[in-house]
């Protein structure tokens, strides 16, 4: 099939089964957009900023379990993708980024809109390619998808000079890739799995510490099977929220800095931790030397480099989690009733230390916003996305996610502004689902322009802004750890007028200052089929509790108490 390199890129995307890509055109990527105009089955969603396109591709990938694709031009278009690429790297989101580059003969001359994007992104991609010969293009695209989704998922980048896009190409898509240095593990070691099964059966206080790797491995069914077979409690990290049904009796909450005390206690007082696609992030462990001091650690992961990177693994198992968990469940010979005392202990902690907040005063409490959102979305097929900060932690605490891929957030990089574009991408992946972005007012203002994309591309999402008028998490830290010296955090609650802004973008806008107003707005918005923004104005003094102070032991949780005292339990 004779065409151009740009045609070849589209034929390759079609061959990969790509349905939708997210991007924004510019000079060096013009030939690719010209090829789109000539015809393709791939839908292009036009973002308003390349960062938005990148986060949309991430939201799409996380909601669908497929590879997300985004496109940008050279120079500033490419550098605007750096944040989504770094985010995808930290959270292991499979992403193929295609960037235009200046013509080959101009590379290295500081040409207009030239930048070395392959060089800039080396520390945050699994691999990248600068296409130097149009004949290499099909194999490179094939390899890009293969690398992005095999092994530990993550971002890759393909930089295509304009003349390569324009050059004639007799396109044929290869059946296989030749990557002699890329050999992800195919299965876990049987002896290590057997050793794990023995350790699990022998443990008195075992716990499954589940991370986002389970979702990337499409292994949530196997996880459920293992947990139920062994009667094993499960804590899910922020990245794994929804990977194990949260209404299941074995779910033991979420560990980490703002996790409930009972979840952190369950993880830290276990005698056996089975880490499943999790990486002992500092936000989970707290002070490492004090983390789960009595626990033997089994670490199941596709990425050998995660084994013993942070916490020594007594039993490492490197392999794809889907087969590893299935084999483990099969091998496990649980001792009947062995974990019941431990489960009862966790339940006792759960009842003793519920999530609490002050329900006094006239002002709407942020936690109440999330409770109401939970109540009104409980019977829907819903996907939540969030920004980063207090609202994100409240969303983790108060939303119940029973289905995989129903909670999409920026965990590792902590990217403010992730929520709105990720929601748009998630809606493209799951048009029949209700997609709700829980955002902060600070986060929303970083990527709010993608409301235009939501409206014009008919990807209606509901944005609930937990608006406290502050960079709330920064405010909390300044209040708690910097002797209340508030510095450069006041955004104001009323500027901009978010409801008006939503209407300016062609969506529906609501302002809610009371619970009744919020309920009414949510009911209307969730059924509207329109892009909506609900400005929920909440008590700015509210802190997010429980909290493990940075550098403290994970068992030393600061809790909210009804008398307003913050106590370390």
């Amino acid at each position, binding site marked *: 099939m004779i065409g151009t390199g740009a045609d070849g890129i589209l034929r390759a995307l079609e061959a990969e089964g790509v349905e939708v890509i997210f991007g924004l055109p510019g000079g060096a990527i013009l030939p690719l957009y010209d090829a789109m105009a000539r015809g393709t089955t791939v839908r292009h969603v036009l973002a308003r900023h390349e960062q938005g396109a990148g986060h949309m591709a991430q939201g799409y990938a996380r909601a669908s379990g497929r590879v997300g694709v985004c496109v940008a031009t050279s120079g500033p278009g490419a550098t605007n993708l750096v944040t989504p690429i770094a985010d995808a790297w930290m959270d292991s989101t499979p992403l193929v980024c295609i960037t235009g580059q200046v013509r080959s003969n101009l590379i290295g001359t500081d040409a207009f809109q030239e930048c070395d994007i*392959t*060089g800039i992104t*080396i*520390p945050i991609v*699994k*691999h*990248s390619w*600068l296409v*130097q010969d149009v004949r290499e293009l099909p194999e490179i695209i094939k390899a890009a998808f293969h*690398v992005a989704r095999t*092994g*530990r998922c993550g971002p890759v980048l393909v930089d295509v000079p304009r003349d390569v896009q324009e050059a004639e190409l007799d396109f044929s898509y290869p059946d296989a890739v030749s*990557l*002699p*240095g*890329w050999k992800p593990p195919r299965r876990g070691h049987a002896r290590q799995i057997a050793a794990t099964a023995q350790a699990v059966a022998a443990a008195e206080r075992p716990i499954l510490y589940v991370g986002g790797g389970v979702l990337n491995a499409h292994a949530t069914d196997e996880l459920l099977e293992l947990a139920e077979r062994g009667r094993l409690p499960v804590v899910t990290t922020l990245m794994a929220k929804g990977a194990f049904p949260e209404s299941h009796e074995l779910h033991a909450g979420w560990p980490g800095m703002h996790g409930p005390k009972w979840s952190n206690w369950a993880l830290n007082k276990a005698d056996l931790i089975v880490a499943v696609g999790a990486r002992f992030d500092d936000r989970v462990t707290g002070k490492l030397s004090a983390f789960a001091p009595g626990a033997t650690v089994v670490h199941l992961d596709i*990425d*050998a*480099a995660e*084994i*013993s*990177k942070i916490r020594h693994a007594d039993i490492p198992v490197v392999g794809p989690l889907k087969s590893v968990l299935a084999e483990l469940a099969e091998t496990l010979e649980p001792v009947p009733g062995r974990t019941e005392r431990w489960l009862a202990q966790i339940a006792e902690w759960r009842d003793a230390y519920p999530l609490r907040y002050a329900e006094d005063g006239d002002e709407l409490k942020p936690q109440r916003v999330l409770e109401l959102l939970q109540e009104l979305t409980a019977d829907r097929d819903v996907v939540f996305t969030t920004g980063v900060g207090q609202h994100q932690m409240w969303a983790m605490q108060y939303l119940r996610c029973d289905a995989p891929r129903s909670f999409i957030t920026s965990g590792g990089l902590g990217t403010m502004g992730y929520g709105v574009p990720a929601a748009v991408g998630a809606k493209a992946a799951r048009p029949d689902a209700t997609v709700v972005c829980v955002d902060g007012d600070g986060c929303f203002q970083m990527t709010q322009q993608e409301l235009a994309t939501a409206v014009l591309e008919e990807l209606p999402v509901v944005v609930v802004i937990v608006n406290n008028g502050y960079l709330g998490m920064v405010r909390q830290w300044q209040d708690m750890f910097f002797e209340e010296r508030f510095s450069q955090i006041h955004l104001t609650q009323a500027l901009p007028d978010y409801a008006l802004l939503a209407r300016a973008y062609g969506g529906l806008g609501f302002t809610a200052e009371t619970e009744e107003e919020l309920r009414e707005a949510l009911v209307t918005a969730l059924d509207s089929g329109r892009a909506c923004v609900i400005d929920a104005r909440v008590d700015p003094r509210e802190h997010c509790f429980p909290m493990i102070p940075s550098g403290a032991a994970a068992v030393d949780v600061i809790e909210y108490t009804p008398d307003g005292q913050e106590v370390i339990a």
Partner: protein
Amino acid sequence: MRHTLSVLVENKPGALMRVTSMFARRGFNIESLAVGPTERHDVSRITLRVDCAPGTLEQIEKQMHKLVNVLRVQELVAGESVERELALLKVAAPASKRAELMTLAEAFHARVADLGPDSIVFELVGTPEEIDSFEELVRPHGLQELGRTGRLGLGRAAKSKSPRPQHVLA
């Protein structure tokens, strides 16, 4: 503790940068690095010298294995490998000192690569430790310039069982 790693990489643009960038990003320190072709035109060898704890070495090896261009990572263990380095040393050599310098050079099997009216350029191939010694001995004579390749290494032709040649340091 010091370790030598021999890394085979695909001979592709940016392969070396991907390796060194990973070291920089993760805070691993490279003491020396030598890169060059191998018996295969599409494969290059990077020989790295690092100073780190055993746990860090394991991390370095695993992180390198994740790089798409990296084909093999092997630690060269003393006694089971051959390590060599090339050094060029320009030493001040007034007529009165030449004889002494030449005697030194002879002892180390260093060759004279170039000879000028006031200085000599020596060429020395040896273990890095031999080069260290030679460098120290000529330094008092006026070491004007020094260039070292960094160490190169290969696994030994006959694995550990055969007696080691004297000049391979343990």
